[in-house]
């Protein structure tokens, strides 16, 4: 319980764009999730290849689409 509460208030780490680019290139597809939480129109006009679109307002209803064991990079 305490662990869960602690996690809830732990901020996610930041990843610089260059680090993210290296990470995406070095890690095989399927071992991580690249998550786009913007609106669909923003995704349509430009997104990082391979990003999964789940707009922020729908995220809490969509956890089952994501694997909690895999690292997630969010933008």
């Amino acid at each position, binding site marked *: 319980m305490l662990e*869960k509460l602690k*996690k*809830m208030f*732990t901020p*996610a*780490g*930041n*990843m*610089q*764009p260059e680090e*993210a*680019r290296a990470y*995406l*290139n070095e890690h*095989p*597809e*399927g071992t991580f999730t690249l998550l*786009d939480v*913007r609106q*669909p129109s*923003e*995704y*349509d*006009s*430009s*997104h*990082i*290849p*391979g990003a*999964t*679109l789940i707009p922020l307002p729908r*995220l*809490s209803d969509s*956890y089952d689409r*994501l694997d*909690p*064991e*895999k*690292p*997630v*990079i*969010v*933008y």
Partner: protein
Amino acid sequence: MLLGQGFKEVYNLAGGIRAWEGAVAQGPVELNLDLVRGDETPVEIIKVAYGMEKTLGGFYRRVGDQTADAELGRLLDTLASIEEKHKQYLMELYLSVEPSGPPAEEFERDVDSTVMEGGFRTDEFIRTNERFLKSVPDVLDLSMMLEAQALDLYIRFSQKTANEETRAILSRIADEEKGHLTALGRLRDKQGRG
């Protein structure tokens, strides 16, 4: 939000997509997803990818045949050769997945050659992008755009597929596409310096 739900590692991309300087893809999630049913076997999906590589190679050759610019002609020849290498990679993948399957010639015969990587159709693509097919920097930008769209489409295919083995194959093809993008980026940097 995700950390509170038991996600082990979560990272925010600093600066969001505005700070991203890598390749980007465009279009809705459903774009060109109708090119696959979602129940393809690994061999069927390799055939889809092989057809796209073949068609893209044919596109570069076709544009190359029409240009009088020697430097651009050489670049288009290089790009077509790169697609040949991609085809070889997919043929090796096919042979590793189905070593006792139909021979390479038969595999090649069944391939659809109407759609290029990224899901574009050659004639329409040439028509709408004619002005970007006349100089070395423009063609390099266009080829990077095509590879970015291809990478994105293979990953969206993998999200549509119901077959675990097919998904694993698509992930391997997507990883190969990342290599193509990096190689093209290097080629563009080299041209920029030249």
